[in-house]
């Protein structure tokens, strides 16, 4: 699929913006701070509801305004119109999602329809950061492929916070510990489902990851393994473990096992963790490879090509790796790059492309090529 048109209103430093993209390759070029990434951010919100920069919606609204709006016309077999509007009220931020003019009131029904994969400098956190960066990355990919997974995650979060609140109440206010029984039952059922989906996903994903890593880097590709705090995806076993750990959980006021504690481990054949030996460039390569593999697995599972958004990523990789990545990605996907300099080395690899320059902040003009 590809974005044909993007409209934004009161979004970051844009009062209004209307862009028409090429279904092939697009470059957005301009100095630091002029608003290049903001354009990709609008596309990522239209795709993922949330921003890839993980900001609060209130910060995205243009200063001194109280709402933003963005929409995209996306070509696939048919044209589909995606719209996200966000407004501030006295005490809350309200978001509205629409597909083809019809309001969508659940994230699970919206997410996974406009498929994008974003490559951006913070991707390195998936490799270097705490386990929640990795869980968030894999959860977002699995959810694209499987709407029931996203729904289960939502239910699970509520069950987990209910259970944790109850654990604290048992400790602090002397509530009856038997009240945990029903929450343990609900918890283990949802946890089992989520872990099961993660395990079968990672079995497919790790092969793609290793393949692409060796292809891009020509050194030993790390393996990815799911580290499971409950040691099983069987609901009965998880329930039993929760019962065994109940005293401890009450003491700490939190749940010690479950998908919220699990991690994805990258390691070499000697079982040494990737982050304990890999160089800066190798980590960067691993982060990029995660995204390349995401593109491919989404394409295989959904039979649709994602729109590739590249936020300034090229400046950080050597020429050999750059061209390898472009080779893997250039299979007919639409691509939108941002960069500070018009980079002839990178550009000559592409046949036709469309360029945009952002000059004075917030004004975009089309390059004639």
């Amino acid at each position, binding site marked *: 699929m590809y974005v044909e048109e993007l409209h934004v209103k009161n979004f970051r430093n844009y009062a209004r913006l209307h862009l028409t993209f090429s279904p092939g390759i697009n470059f957005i070029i301009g100095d630091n701070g002029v608003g290049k990434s903001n354009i990709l951010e609008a596309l990522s919100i239209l795709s993922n509801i949330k921003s890839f920069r993980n900001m609060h919606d209130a910060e995205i609204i243009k200063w001194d305004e109280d709402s933003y709006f963005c929409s995209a016309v996306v070509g696939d077999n048919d044209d589909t119109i995606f719209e996200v509007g966000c407004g501030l009220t006295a005490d809350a931020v309200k978001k509205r999602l629409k597909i083809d003019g019809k309001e969508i009131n659940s994230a699970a029904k919206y997410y996974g329809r406009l498929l994008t994969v974003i490559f951006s400098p913070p991707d390195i956190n998936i490799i270097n950061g705490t386990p929640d960066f990795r869980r968030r990355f894999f959860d977002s990919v699995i959810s694209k492929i499987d709407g029931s997974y996203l729904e289960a995650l939502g239910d699970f979060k509520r069950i987990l916070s209910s259970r944790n609140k109850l654990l604290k109440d048992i400790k602090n206010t002397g509530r009856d510990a038997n009240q945990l*029984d*029903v929450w343990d039952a609900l918890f283990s059922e949802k946890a089992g489902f989520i872990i099961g989906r993660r395990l079968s996903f990672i079995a497919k994903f790790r092969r793609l990851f290793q393949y692409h890593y060796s292809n891009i880097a020509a050194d030993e590709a790390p393996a990815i393994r799911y580290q499971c705090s409950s040691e099983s995806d069987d609901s009965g076993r998880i329930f039993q473990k929760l019962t065994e750990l109940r005293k401890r959980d009450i003491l700490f006021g939190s749940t010690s096992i479950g998908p919220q504690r699990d991690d994805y481990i990258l390691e070499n054949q000697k079982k040494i963790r990737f982050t304990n030996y890999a160089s800066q460039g190798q980590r960067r390569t691993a982060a990029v490879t995660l995204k390349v593999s995401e593109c491919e697995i989404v394409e295989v599972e959904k039979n649709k090509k994602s729109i590739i958004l590249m936020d300034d990523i090229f400046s950080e990789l050597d020429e050999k790796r750059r061209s390898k990545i472009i080779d893997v990605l250039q299979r007919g996907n639409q691509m939108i790059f941002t960069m500070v300099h018009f980079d002839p080395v990178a550009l000559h690899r592409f046949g036709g492309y469309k360029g945009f320059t952002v000059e004075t902040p917030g004004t975009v003009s089309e390059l004639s090529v």
Partner: protein
Amino acid sequence: MKSSSYLDALIKKFSKLPGIGTKSASRLAFHILSMPTDEVESLGRAMVDLKKNTFTCTICGGIADSEVCAICHDDARDRSLICVVEDAKDVLTIEGTGEYRGMYHVLAGLISPLDGVGPENLNLRTLAQRCGSGAVREVILALNPSIEGEATSLYLAQLINPFGVTVTRIAHGLPVGADIEFADNATIIKSLEGRVKISR
């Protein structure tokens, strides 16, 4: 600034009601202004009467004119069947279908740790008594399919099973997250008919 302080006051009162914004509030206030005085008086009286003269039924926890509600009084109803609902509004909704002939039990809430609500805050004592009386054959759980609804259903199944009473739950032909309150008659009837047994 409104032209009349009385008008202003009523609009403010109306807009505090659920589902009523300032626009509808002023529409209602102007409508009341246009009504004959005796109509307005009887409307006001109906509201005060409702508040002053109703009780919580000592058997089912529903709304009643005296200690026991009309449904619990009605000898023609099937006393071996109890339908458990979250609040008294749900009784009205299910009665609206005209299909259900059993009794009710109103919990007045759902188990919700995040809101600090535990089983001890629900109307459960009389439910246990009713189930232990020997007259009840089946308890139908008609709670919303939210996490709290699920947790409450599981809890009730554990509470009621020891009495040798069959526990069933309505089939959720209701879309996930949908309240019974907003379902149409046909959907409610279908979900009552398609109820499934809970074994745990």
